[in-house]
């Protein structure tokens, strides 16, 4: 079994293929700037919101839209990861119940972030082509370990982004997703016997760390 590098998701294998060069460059730029987790947490604001909300959105900072699009790419990845994993039938019982809810959360985040980007006047990025390393879903433990690593990277990278979001409203919404990702990370850690509370304050990733983590995602 391929050991998972602690600082890399999916053992450092590239899992994302981004067809459009513009999207790809935007993703790389944001990855260096804000980190992987940014995506996991920066979006997801629109869940359940009324469409009337669109009317009040007048303008948005370009940088915030870039961050949200970066977020969207990562939410696509997460949602696809769980959907693929669940189809393998590796888990059941309580674990299945928990992972199903996490998968639903991520799927909602995709919908939410796409809608938000649109409402802010931006163009949502397309779903990337995603290819997970063959042994990602080899067995239950591989699946859960990959999920745990992924969620932890997301959380820590997000906290490197907090200071970069310009709109207070987008920030508040991003935080409301960040908390959910923290819950995911804690529960997954508990499921694999890891550390559910790795620090009293969520850690942040430096730019260098983030770059190291993100590059392998891009094919």
């Amino acid at each position, binding site marked *: 079994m391929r050991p998972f590098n602690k600082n890399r998701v999916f053992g450092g294998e590239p899992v994302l293929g981004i067809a459009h060069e513009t999207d790809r460059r935007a993703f790389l730029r944001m990855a260096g700037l804000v980190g992987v987790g940014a995506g996991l947490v920066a979006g997801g604001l629109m869940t359940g*919101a009324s469409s009337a909300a669109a009317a009040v959105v007048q303008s948005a900072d370009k940088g915030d839209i870039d961050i949200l699009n970066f977020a969207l790419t990562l939410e696509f990845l997460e949602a696809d990861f769980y959907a693929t994993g669940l189809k393998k039938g590796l888990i059941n019982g309580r674990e299945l119940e928990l992972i199903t809810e*996490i998968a639903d959360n991520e799927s909602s985040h995709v919908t939410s972030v796409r809608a938000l980007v649109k409402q802010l006047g931006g163009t949502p990025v397309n779903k990337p082509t995603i290819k997970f390393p063959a042994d990602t879903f080899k067995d239950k433990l591989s699946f859960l370990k990959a999920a745990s690593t992924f969620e932890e990277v997301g*959380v820590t990278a997000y906290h490197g982004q907090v200071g970069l979001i310009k*709109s207070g409203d987008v920030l508040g919404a991003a*935080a409301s997703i*960040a908390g959910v990702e923290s819950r995911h990370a*804690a529960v997954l850690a508990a499921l694999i016997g890891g550390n559910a509370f790795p620090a009293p*304050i*969520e850690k942040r990733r430096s730019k260098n760390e983030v770059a190291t983590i993100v590059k392998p995602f891009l094919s």
Partner: protein
Amino acid sequence: MNHQDLIKGQATDVSPRLALGALNNRWAMAKAADFANDVEVLNFALTLEFLEAEFYRQGNKAVQLSGIEGKFLKQIQSDEESHVKTLADTIKKLGGTPAEAPKVEFGDAFENRKNFLTTSRTFENVGVNAYLGAAGFLKDKGILQAAAGIFGVEARHAAIIGLLLGLPAKGGVFVGDVETPKSKDEVLAAVAPFLAGGAGAGGTETVIIPAGAPDTGAGGEAKDTTGLVQATTGGVLVAGAAVALIARHRMAPRGEEDDD
């Protein structure tokens, strides 16, 4: 409304209704007058952290938990103690006076495992709601960042406690696709049963818990403290986090040592 001025005024071109509608987030419902400056937000958070830390200090002594559960609850206690120290240190660096520990009364929360964990879950989820509801008032980005970091850890605690209680994934361990903010008044109402002798009973001159008497004054003076500390506050909070593991700070309210 001072509300839009969340981050050094950079959000002033965004309609406050954006938060209410587009973000499905009741951020905008919090009153602008809830907090006049960062120190007030931090003291509000500090009071909650005092409450939480003392809760676990007493509970971990009074309630026998199994190995893994006991380990989780001790880690949580250590985290809360760390938060108390971090917040108090930061308030001092900002030139403010940290709130004192409130007097507490936990009733039958430690009667058995289930009561302990159930009350714990309430505290953690209220903590999550409180940080999210108050974060919009923080003007200093360094402080905001650290507050977000604490918020995330409270969410971890809440999820794990839900897991230990065997609650449903949906609505128990996880509480939706997004976390929900609460206004100061809502948070105070939620923790009121645990404050002995009424709100603000800690005897501090800084009244953190104005029971039933929310500020109605304007929040227009909120900018003046932040410029001084812009370069240092993030560092303070981060440094506080680093020493948190030492957990040398004791939160026992004076004159209210163990009564078990």
